[in-house]
Structure formats: structure tokens, C-alpha cells
């Protein structure tokens, strides 16, 4: 005989519905996993812009004294460059708050020095503050640490939510497959009884269901992963087509780790389906003859 007929008959209608549900769950899980992974990239992208960047605010100093302070800053160990902002640059910074008509000359404004430091040097902010204070400047050094911390915290929460979604979706898929396996077992009770009476062990009968659901999980997971890949590609395309103006969003892309996530999705779905089917069948068979 060229090929043995499967001992469990194919059940097209029931399995098509299950296939759809598992594929949809895998699609959502893969998207959630990609989202969780993207938070690492976003955190890097958003905080990289302020890593090693400091802003020094000098109060009650004229332009010349501010230039002396800039030179002092530039000589400090770890500082790569220091740039004293011009009046025009300060106007531009304040434009979102005060409009584009410029600020009155009578308005006292602090002098601002944009400092670029080596990100590897620790405690750059306190070091600069100490140098300036010792030189007699009334100054404040902002490392943007609060902003970066907020970004990291928000992204950590987002990542946790995404991973929770992955776990919930995977659990749902396992529960759905366990339910479907139990239904299939009851629907094929006649076959299971004949197999038992022919001397089949529980493991043998379970293996029939395992194979069936392993293949289903693998195929449904592959479809879900492909749909997730399509959705991610569409999002990247849309971001590139319409983005780039605000500068707030990190650049979206798919790297090899994203592809690993997508490749793993059907494998995990297949394994989860197989294990769910095995556990369900073995437990159910114990209540049978």
C-alpha cells in the first residue's frame, strides 16, 4: 500500500474553523511580540538623542562671560564640544511657546550652552556643575535624565503589556486547541473505542491527535506569521511615506530578530497545539475504558 490512510478521518469543516481561529490568534500574538521587541529599539532611538547631551543654563551673565564659561566647559574632561546658543537659536527654541515674532530685548533670558560629552563618562552633569560653581557662575546643568527615564518607563510598561498580550493569546490558542481536541475525541469516540479494543495504548491514540494538531498549529501559525509580516511591512511603508516630519517616532524597520520572531511563531504554535492535544487526550482517555 503506497500510503496508509490516517486512522483519524479528516474533518474539513471543524478543522477549517479551528484553523481560522488559531491563525488569527497567531497573527495577533506575532504582532504583539513584534511590538514588544520594537520597544527596545524605540527606547534606544529615543534616548540615544539625549545620551551625552547636556544643556547648561547660565543666569545673570552677559554674552562675554557666557563665552568664558563655554570655554571653561569645553576644557572639562569628557566634554567633546560646547556651543553657546545665539539669540536667534534661543528664539527658535522658544518659538513653539511664544510664536515666531521674536522676543523683546528687554526680556531677561539666560545664556544657554549646548554641551556634547562622551556618553561613557559617568557623572558628567555634577562634574560640570562643580567646575562652574567653583568659577563663580550661577548655573544649572540639565542632563535630560528625567525625560529619558520617563521614556524608558513608558516603553517598559508598553513592553510588559505587549508580552502579557502574547502570553494571553498563546494561552487562548492552547485552550481553544484543547477544547477542539476534546470535541474531536468525543466525535470520534467510536474509532477510539475500536482502537482501544484492538490493543492500542493511550500513547498511540494520543499520537494520532498530536500529529493532527501539530500540523494544524504549524500551518495556522505560518499563515498568522505571514499576515503579521504583511501588517508590519504595511506599517513601515506607511510610516516612511507619511512620516519623517515630526521626528518623534523612531525609524521603523524589520531586522533579523523580527524575522526570527515570525519564523518561531508557527513552530511555537505547532508545539503548543501538539502538547495541548496530547495532554487533553491522555487525560480524557483515562476516563474511558
Amino acid at each position, binding site marked *: 500500500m503506497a500510503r496508509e490512510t490516517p486512522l483519524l478521518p479528516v474533518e474539513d469543516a471543524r478543522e477549517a474553523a479551528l484553523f481560522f481561529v488559531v491563525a488569527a490568534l497567531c497573527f495577533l500574538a506575532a504582532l504583539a511580540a513584534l511590538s514588544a521587541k520594537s520597544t527596545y529599539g524605540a527606547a534606544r532611538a529615543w534616548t540615544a538623542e539625549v545620551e551625552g547631551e547636556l544643556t547648561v543654563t547660565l543666569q545673570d551673565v552677559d554674552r562675554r562671560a557666557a563665552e568664558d564659561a563655554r570655554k571653561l566647559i569645553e576644557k572639562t574632561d569628557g566634554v567633546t564640544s560646547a556651543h553657546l546658543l545665539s539669540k536667534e537659536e534661543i528664539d527658535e527654541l522658544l518659538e513653539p511657546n511664544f510664536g515666531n515674532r521674536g522676543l523683546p530685548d528687554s526680556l531677561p533670558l539666560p545664556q544657554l550652552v549646548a554641551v556634547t560629552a562622551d556618553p561613557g563618562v559617568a557623572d558628567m552633569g555634577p562634574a560640570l556643575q562643580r567646575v562652574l560653581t567653583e568659577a563663580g557662575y550661577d548655573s544649572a546643568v540639565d542632563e535630560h535624565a528625567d525625560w529619558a527615564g520617563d521614556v524608558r518607563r513608558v516603553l517598559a510598561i508598553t513592553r510588559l503589556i505587549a508580552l502579557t498580550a502574547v502570553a494571553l493569546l498563546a494561552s487562548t490558542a492552547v485552550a481553544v486547541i484543547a477544547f477542539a481536541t476534546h470535541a474531536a475525541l468525543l466525535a470520534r469516540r467510536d474509532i477510539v473505542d475500536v482502537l482501544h479494543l484492538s490493543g*492500542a495504548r493511550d500513547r498511540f491514540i494520543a499520537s494520532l491527535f498530536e500529529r493532527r494538531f501539530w500540523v494544524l498549529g504549524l500551518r495556522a501559525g505560518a499563515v498568522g506569521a505571514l499576515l503579521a509580516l504583511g501588517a508590519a511591512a504595511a506599517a513601515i511603508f506607511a510610516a516612511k511615506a507619511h512620516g519623517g516630519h515630526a521626528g518623534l517616532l523612531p525609524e521603523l524597520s524589520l531586522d533579523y530578530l523580527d524575522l526570527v520572531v515570525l519564523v518561531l511563531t508557527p513552530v511555537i504554535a505547532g508545539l503548543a497545539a501538539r502538547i495541548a492535544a496530547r495532554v487533553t487526550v491522555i487525560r480524557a*482517555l*483515562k476516563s474511558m475504558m
Partner: protein
Amino acid sequence: MEPMTLSRLDPFDDIAVRLDNVSLRYDTSDDVLSGIDLSLKQGSFTFLTGASGAGKSSLLKLLYLALKPTRGEVSLFGRPTGRLARDQLSAMRRRVGVVFQEFRLLEHLSAYENVALPLRVVGRKDSDYRGDVEELLAWVGLGKRLHAKPPTLSGGEQQRVAIARAVVTQPDILIADEPTGNVDPEMGSRLMRLFLELNKRRGTTVIIATHDLGLVRQVEAPVYRLNNGLLVRDVEFGEDSAGRRRTDPAKAAD
């Protein structure tokens, strides 16, 4: 047919089937079987009769380990089955061939695959048993219907497939529930000869439940009758009043 490869009867106990004070009830019903004691030696040939609903099928289900008794103990090959682990039960079932009254063929499998099923579930390869299965199907008159699915077979043909499936492993115990009910008299006699050959040549313990008193008279073996859940030995057929067989079943096979 190739020699049987499954484990043989336990050498220290020649009792193949033993029921000790066995009772059975389904859910809240009255006892279907009540206080049954039965002991069948290895290589014996036994008929079980009784009116419809007398509990024949229930008794057979206990014997082929599809049910557990409500009370009492069923022992096969000298081993009580009540406390066997599930894998041990499976191993025990492999030594018991069953012809179900309703055949219980798998409809999506061909006649060939149905007959080969007990061999397939123990992991044997198609190439190992193909010849045996084809020969057996030819013997029951289905040599040209190897690939026919049960829904396309007549009742008699399905019954013959079921019988072939029951004997393909050359079991130590063969249990048949109305095995000739759907076949013509000629095929009925032929199938009985198969059972008798298994009994005579292999020492298979054969238990046949039947309404067919003609069949019972033909073989002349011990007859048990179920009546209202009670099992009694019937002296009308098969044996004289002293319990001696009038005819050795083996002679009927010749």
C-alpha cells in the same frame, strides 16, 4: 498465516477466563448481570445463549475488557484485570480478538486496512503483514474487495471483514457476538470452521454468543444460557447431563 508473535498463555494457569461473583449494573439500573461465576479453560469452545436483553453483550464486554464489573473480579490468563495499569490492559486486549455484533468497522478505511488495524496499532509494518491480511480476506471471500470501504459492503461482507479483523492476530481468546447473523448458511458454516480450526490448531479459547440454535447443535460444545442476569449451564445442547461433551469440536473442524 505466520506464527503468532504475541505473548502466549501463562504456563502456570490453564484457565483462560475466570469470573468470580461478577455483577454489573449501568448507572442506577438494576443488575444486568448478577453473581456470575464462570471458568473457561484455555483451548475451550463455549457458546453463550439467552434471550434478547438477557445480558449476553454485557457479559462479552466484560470479557473483552470494555467494561469493568460493578462487583466481583474478571481474570484473564490467570490475572485479575481490575487492578491492571492501562498499558497492561492494552497488552491484555491484544490477546483477545472480538467480533462485534454491530461490526464496528472504521468507515474511512478499506476492508484491507480494517483487517490490518490490530497489527497497525502494535506498530507492525504493512510489508510484514500484507500477505497474511490478503490471504485472510481471500479466505473469507473478499479477495477482490480489498480496497472497498465498509459503506459499500453488504452486511454479510462487513461481518466477514469484522471476523477477519478479530482473528488476524491469532488471538488467545476469540469472542464473537452473533458472528454468523448476517451471512448465508454456507458462509456461516465456513466461518464456524475457521473458529474451530483456531480452537483446534492454536488452542484459541472461543466464546460465541448466538441465537442460532442450529449453530449450537452443529458444534456440540458447552452452552451457557443467560436468564435475567443469571448464568446457567444449559444441558439441552452440547453436553450430556454429566457434563461430558458429546462431540469434540475439533472433529467438526475436520
